[in-house]
């Protein structure tokens, strides 16, 4: 889906920040707890890696940006728990208020509705009996599509033509796996683009590779 998470090429974000060598992994203790909680919440919701990323991309601007990176993870973990009715809407906020001394009624625990889902194997890589549809060196175009559900095809690459650089191992397709509609494993292609084909004649000269699942690609006419 098109959301705030898809940031490639988006204007208006200002300067980058030079790296700091002494930066701790978690700048505050709650960040480490939010990191672990997000992973465990997604697991408790019956989710997978792709459903978690889809939860991240469904967050609105405030939930994606304002609480920082691990706040974003916390919010996505909570959203997964709401999706599966492990938690009731408002449960976290009500408990948080009670923790700071208010007396608010907490919603009753709902009847969980976890997805009917189990992976066919560990991890995300899968072996395919079929051969890749595209060859190294072949010109391909990223499809110009804007699916309502999850996708890992960034907006900035849609409709652009590049050349297959590396055929990567096949993996589960995030677009269906995120919605528990099957793993639909496909080959992944690292496609090399010229910056001028991507950003126009005035762009800095450079090359860019984007890793795309087979169904994201088509043969240019």
């Amino acid at each position: 889906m098109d959301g705030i998470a898809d940031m490639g090429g988006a204007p208006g974000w200002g300067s980058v920040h030079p790296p700091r060598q002494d930066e701790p992994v978690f700048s505050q203790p709650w960040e480490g707890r939010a990191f672990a909680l997000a992973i465990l919440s997604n697991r408790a919701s019956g989710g997978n890696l792709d459903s978690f990323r889809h939860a991240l991309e469904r967050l609105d601007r405030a939930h994606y940006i304002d609480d920082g990176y691990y706040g974003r993870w916390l919010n996505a973990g909570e959203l997964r728990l709401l999706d599966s009715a492990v938690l009731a809407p408002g449960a976290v906020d009500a408990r948080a208020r009670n923790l700071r001394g208010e007396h608010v009624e907490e919603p009753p625990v709902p009847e969980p509705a976890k997805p009917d889902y189990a992976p066919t194997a560990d991890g995300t890589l899968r072996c395919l009996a079929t051969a890749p549809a595209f060859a190294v060196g072949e010109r391909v175009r990223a499809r110009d599509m804007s699916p309502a559900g999850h996708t890992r095809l960034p907006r900035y690459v849609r409709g652009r033509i590049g050349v297959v650089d590396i055929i990567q191992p096949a993996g589960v397709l995030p677009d269906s796996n995120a919605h528990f509609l099957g793993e639909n494993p496909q080959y992944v292609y690292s496609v090399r683009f010229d910056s001028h084909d991507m950003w126009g004649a005035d762009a800095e000269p450079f090359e860019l590779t984007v890793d795309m699942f087979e169904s994201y690609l088509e043969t240019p006419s």
Partner: protein
Amino acid sequence: MTTTAGSAERLPPALRTEALEQLLTERGLIDPKAMNGLITTYETNIGPLNGAKVVARAWTDPEYRRRLLEDGTAAIDELGFGGFQGEHIVVVENTATSHNVVVCTLCSCYPWPVLGLPPSWYKDPAYRARVVKEPRAVLSEMGLELADDVRITVHDSTSEVRWLVLPEQPPGTEHLTEEELVPLVTRDAMVGVAKVAAP
């Protein structure tokens, strides 16, 4: 747009984290030991030192370097590193004339087994948005000036493929041992936003 909000006031994430942890723990839905294990693993055990060991080995062992560039995942596994967020790692080499830099424009995908969790600059919207459009300007803002004739390749980590940069060995360090080279290798050089400096 779906959100998690129930109320108008936005409660601080630290407080909401505590609330969620309490709710899940009291229902037995999460194991506090698993929770603490995850935090310790990524705060203490898995970090860029792993990647530095891979790089130092590649700099001192030409056969290993060849294997690393041919099949990164297998060569990295030889040193005991691999797993979650590192199922398939491709290693690309920076030289005097060719420079690779890595990003994830869609979230902040990063090769956890060799670099740990990503630093704040890697997760920054400005980096994610701009490095695929104007990498030379971005690298310059980060303190890395590249000569005009250096060919830049940006790698956007949009699948489960993870990218690791093999930085150029700094001149004058050829006499150092693998163990002496390890502390010179920085996280930033292994993502491609810095070079490794001689001691």
